[in-house]
């Protein structure tokens, strides 16, 4: 037998073995056994339809306007109180009261600390 013929014969048995293995591989059907259900359960959630985003935003705006229109006095009170606090002018008596309260709080803390020791 020539070297080429020997090489071909040598290739043939491997080729046949590979073909046989491939035939068996192609003929085997793997049962689903819940595989498809597992894949489908892991699919990403469906995205919102394109028309829903602007509609949702519009609904929020309408709700905000409705609340603002329904509670005008509440807005007046809140803004009035904030403005009064901001525009309040501190007098000398206010400062004296604040200093007295600060001194009392510090003294009390020192006395408590001394008792703890």
């Amino acid at each position: 037998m020539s070297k080429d013929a020997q090489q071909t014969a040598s290739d043939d048995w491997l080729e046949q073995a590979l073909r046989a293995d491939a035939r068996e591989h192609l003929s085997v059907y793997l049962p689903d056994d819940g595989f498809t259900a597992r894949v489908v359960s892991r699919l990403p959630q469906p995205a919102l339809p394109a028309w829903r985003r602007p509609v949702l935003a519009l609904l929020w705006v309408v709700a905000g306007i409705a609340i603002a229109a329904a509670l005008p006095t509440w807005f007046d009170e809140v803004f009035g109180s904030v403005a009064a606090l901001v525009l309040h002018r501190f007098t000398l008596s206010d400062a004296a009261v604040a200093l007295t309260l600060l001194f009392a709080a510090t003294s009390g803390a020192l006395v408590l600390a001394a008792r703890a020791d």
Partner: protein
Amino acid sequence: MSSPAISDAQLIARVLVQDDRHAFSELVRRHQSTVRACLRKLTCGNAALADDLAQETFLLAYRNLKSFRQEAKFSTWLYRIAYNAFLADARKTKESALADDVEPESDEHYSEPAPAARAATLKIDLERAMAVLSDDERAAIVQCYHNDLSHEEAARVLGCPVGTVKTHVFRAKQKLKARLGAWAPTES
């Protein structure tokens, strides 16, 4: 097996246009066996890993379905995604070194078994020998033989030139011959 009433292309169109999950589940049902079997070959019989990778494959296919062009068969496109998932996992786990632990069988094992037993034994030895191949070589053999793809189709799946596929197949066969030398016909 009878041909399906609705083609893959029609199911794909339904998924793309209506986000029809039922259509996608039908695609999965149709192709799960071949994709899982292909991955089992690539992972040297690791069924659990193959099924995990198959799930990843179908999830990736769902996310990237828009990029599927109908030039190739859907199954070929799935094989490509499956192969990429396998490669990514192999890089992560570095399991390819495991293959070197496989020892060839001794010659006594092959001494004149019955034909059926001989075929079964050859199959087992072939599977073991496949584990010795590099990932690229095994993938080339699986695509060209087990998935019955042409060299051109295999090249598309593996993302390399046709010549490289042929080289991988040639080298793989050389290695298989060396591993399975005892099965070669003896000269008379």
